[in-house]
């Protein structure tokens, strides 16, 4: 009997839907039914961590803290330690001794950087991210939410950065009278129709990685975004920000993060746009909405607008 790994829970299964999580799975060819278009395209590599995590024996195994930087650093230390005495006392070449010193310096740098690499593998991180995105997409799809998400600053959400998605798409203006409670479904004004879903987006979590609150100027936002994209997340190159009254245009150079079109991404925007909107909302201390996104292989442009 043909068995495959369920892309949702990672269990080995032979029938569709999955007997463990009831997720529709294509055993022999494409899945038929309403969910067909929304099935995530998992690679065999991204399915592996789920399998490991679902297995009790594998879970007890401590992940190795030795990454390629650490291994290279350790190798260079050995090479340097052998090279210096050999060149000093055996060959008496100054340049070879100097090269040994350079190798030692490089090994220290590699060891220092290797300690900062997260222990969680990229595959496991992608798995967790995709699970979150899929769950959110399911909720949005079930509720038929199509309106654009409004990125709120922490002052409007009692401390924690959040995104509010108005359930009533006809109401284009968003007037928040007071700080909103930390709930999933919130009423954001006195009108009975003004109800929205308050969720956490990728950008909201990314803003917590900043060392301090970004400044409201274009350069302040620019440096915060470049720090996040280049230094912390490693998902893009430098960023340019242009402020024009209530509009902000963010240009992200050399993006290398995959965009997955889901129901929720139509509302929340792509991960890069979500990060840009969250940072801008926090910097300006005002709610923002993503009005437009353009992407080509070299640049990702995001247009943001102040709401209210």
């Amino acid at each position: 009997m043909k068995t495959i790994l369920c892309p949702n829970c990672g269990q080995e299964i032979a029938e569709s839907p999955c007997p463990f999580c009831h997720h529709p799975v294509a055993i022999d060819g494409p899945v038929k039914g309403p969910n067909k278009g929304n099935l995530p395209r998992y690679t065999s590599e991204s399915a592996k961590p789920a399998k490991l995590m679902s297995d009790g024996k594998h879970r007890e195994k401590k992940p190795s803290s030795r990454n390629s930087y650490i291994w290279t650093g350790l190798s260079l230390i050995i090479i340097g330690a052998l090279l210096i005495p050999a060149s000093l006392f055996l060959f008496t070449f100054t340049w070879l001794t100097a090269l040994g010193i350079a190798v030692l310096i490089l090994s220290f740098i590699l060891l220092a950087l290797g300690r900062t690499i997260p222990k969680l593998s990229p595959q496991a991180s992608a798995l967790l991210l995709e699970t979150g995105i899929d769950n959110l997409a399911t909720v949005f799809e079930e509720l038929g939410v199509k309106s654009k998400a409004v990125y709120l600053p922490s002052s409007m959400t009692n401390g924690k950065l959040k995104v509010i998605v108005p359930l009533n798409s006809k109401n284009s203006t968003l007037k928040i009278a007071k700080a909103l409670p930390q709930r999933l479904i919130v009423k954001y004004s006195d009108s009975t129709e003004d109800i929205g879903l308050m969720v956490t987006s990728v950008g909201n979590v990314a803003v917590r990685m900043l060392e301090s609150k970004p400044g409201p100027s274009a350069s302040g936002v620019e440096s915060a975004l470049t720090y996040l994209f280049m230094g912390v997340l490693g998902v893009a190159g430098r960023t340019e920000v242009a402020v024009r009254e209530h509009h902000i245009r963010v240009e992200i150079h050399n993006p290398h993060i995959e965009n997955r079109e889901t129901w929720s991404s139509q509302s929340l925007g792509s991960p890069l746009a979500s990060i840009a909107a969250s940072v801008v909302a926090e910097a300006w201390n005002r709610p923002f909405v993503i009005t437009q996104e353009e992407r080509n292989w070299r640049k990702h442009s995001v247009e943001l607008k102040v709401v209210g």
Partner: protein
Amino acid sequence: MKLYNSYILIVAGLLLLTTVILTAIGQEALDVYYTIYILEALVVTELYIYFNPKARRGLSLVSAILFGGFLFVVSLEVIRILG
């Protein structure tokens, strides 16, 4: 990790280039090599302002160790001149 890789490549390239240049001009003093290496490593580290705090802490420790070595080389030179 692109930032880490570019940093490591630049430092490695500079150290190698320095070795080639100093060897070509016939430099025989090891303390000169070491001093230039340290200066280059410190300058490049300072130029990479977008490192995350954890990486910056680790590199600060490396810089401190290298600077300690530099002070040792300088003190040896001072003793040699005074002696």
